[in-house]
């Protein structure tokens, strides 16, 4: 899938009240403290999440975007605590179109904040899985994103929460939430895609 081309045929109408409500239900579940998971993430899910992390670390951005569903929400909240993503600004709240813009800016080769580019490694652990149905799974993981750029290494610890759908046997990521521990602290250069 080529990113730096006109996006005329991209489905964008899915960003509406219903989609925000769905997001609210998802995050309410993920933030509930005392729920025991149905499983430690099984192999099939682990393969997907490790692939997603690896493609992003390897900067195979266009291939990475193929893992997301057509009605993706990619959310990096700012507010720590109860949130209202429709009305509150976030670090990122992207649909497919805007996530593609973020990737596209890097792919132009002209993004100064990625000149030189960051090197990243995402470490996932504490993977808990909830099976809403046989075609909808929710996964929560602890994450540390390690980033090296211009002689400095930084870490971004937090949680990642995924809504994963199965459609005709194929898995895709419908929602990804990156909840940084320091989300409401002044942010540095996050242009490497959190």
């Amino acid at each position, binding site marked *: 899938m080529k*990113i*730096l*081309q*006109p*996006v005329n045929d991209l489905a*964008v*109408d899915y*960003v*509406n009240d219903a989609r*925000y409500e769905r997001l609210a239900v998802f995050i309410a579940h993920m933030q509930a403290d005392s729920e025991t998971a149905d499983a430690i993430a099984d192999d099939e899910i682990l393969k997907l999440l490790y692939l997603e992390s690896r493609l992003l670390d390897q900067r195979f951005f266009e291939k990475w975007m193929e893992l997301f569903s057509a009605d993706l*929400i990619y959310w990096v909240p*700012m507010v720590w605590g109860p949130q209202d993503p*429709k*009305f*509150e*600004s*976030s*670090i*990122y*709240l*992207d*649909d497919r*179109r*805007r996530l*593609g*813009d*973020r990737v*596209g*800016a*890097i*792919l*132009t*080769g*002209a*993004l*100064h*904040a990625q*000149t030189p580019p960051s090197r990243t490694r995402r470490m996932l652990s504490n993977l808990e899985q909830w099976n809403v149905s046989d075609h909808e799974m929710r996964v929560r993981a602890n994450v540390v994103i390690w980033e090296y750029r211009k002689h400095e290494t930084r870490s971004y610890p937090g949680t990642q929460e995924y809504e994963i759908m199965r459609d005709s046997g194929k898995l895709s990521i419908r929602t990804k939430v990156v909840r940084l521990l320091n989300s*409401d*602290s*002044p*942010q*540095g*250069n*996050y*242009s490497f895609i959190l």
Partner: protein
Amino acid sequence: MKTAPFKRDAEHQEQSRYDHLVTADGMVHRSLFTDPLIFEEEMRQIFGGTWVFLLHESEIPQANDFKCVTIGRRPLIVARDSDGVVRGMMNRCTHRGATVCQQEQGNARRFTCAYHGWTFGNNGDLLGVTFPKGYRREFDKAAHNLGKLPCLESYRGYVFGSLNPDVESLREWLGAASEMIDWSVDNLVTSKARVVKASSMVFNANWKLQSDNNGDMYHVPATHKSVAMMTQLRHGAGKALDHFDGDASDMYVKYYGHGHKLIDQTPAIESAWDRARPVPGRETYARALEQRIGKAEARKYLEMTGRAGINLVLYPNIIIAGAGSFNVYDPVSVDRTIVHSYDVVLEDAPDEVNALKSRFKEDFAGFGYRDDNEIFERIQHALTTIPEMEWLDFSKGLGTDREVFEGNGVVRGAVSDETGIRGSYSYWKELMSRDIRPRVIQ
């Protein structure tokens, strides 16, 4: 048209010791950005010597609301007491110096220091101490009230404070710049706007690089090249910042005096909405809004969800960007700065408007600011490490017929010129040279 050098008022005609650092040729010395001693002086002479933006009235709307901000690094509690009076109080116990408030924002009648339990009212008065005996003289509570700003005034909801008891009135100090504050507030469509935090960022560079950049249109094509290319390829022309084409339009920059500068992009922006990069929900919420209130009314609101096109940079620490949006600079050290971004929720507008506004406020923060900050850090690095190259060149437009003196200290320049930035440095020199005594009152 004949141009003249920046005039100082009569009491500052004598040579400033900073004349050799900010020259009449528009050159500025690197030490302004790298010298920690100059930074400390700025915290006193500038951030302690003139008006500093603190917060917007709508952030502390109710009696007993408070917010913690900074004034030149100093932690300050801005509180509205039970009578509605707003004060700025140093967040520093008058006993042995601990900060008394650890919450960024809230509602409280009292602040109690965790160390020895001294309790202060939200008007700064010391209400009580534990174990008051044992002082040589009768313990004087009033002498131990929280240190307050001697001056606090607001204009159109923007609250400023000063540690300088002799500062001119806020109105006088804003001068002609108030016309753009008026424009920005009066154009908001609704009158019930509540300021909300949008984001914060930090970079390892001097605060003046941010201020200079906010008064600079020249950098747009080179610095923001990636956004321009990506937006053009994916969304076509006529979006984002491609309305800047050198000096081809009627856009301009301006210096208002007292350090305030402006970029007016509105002559080249026919519709903020049309030019807005597409945010999540653009089409859905625009359609829903039109269905709800009709196309004409909807358009008025949609224009509030894009780039209004003014950069009003009030000295030293705030840029007002129109449509309710503003950014505040918090200097941390000579080579580190925090910037807080704010927007407004339009309380009596349909939900669709605010659902678009929230998404637009994120846009340039993610796609534009990071490139600016990267540039600032490159500058900071080179200025700090190469003492043999002393000067930064801000002379674009100086002494040319592009520089137009409009009277009352107001100077207009071509949009790609550094006219406004030069003006800010002339004021910097003036403030740094003054004999002022910042203080708190109790």
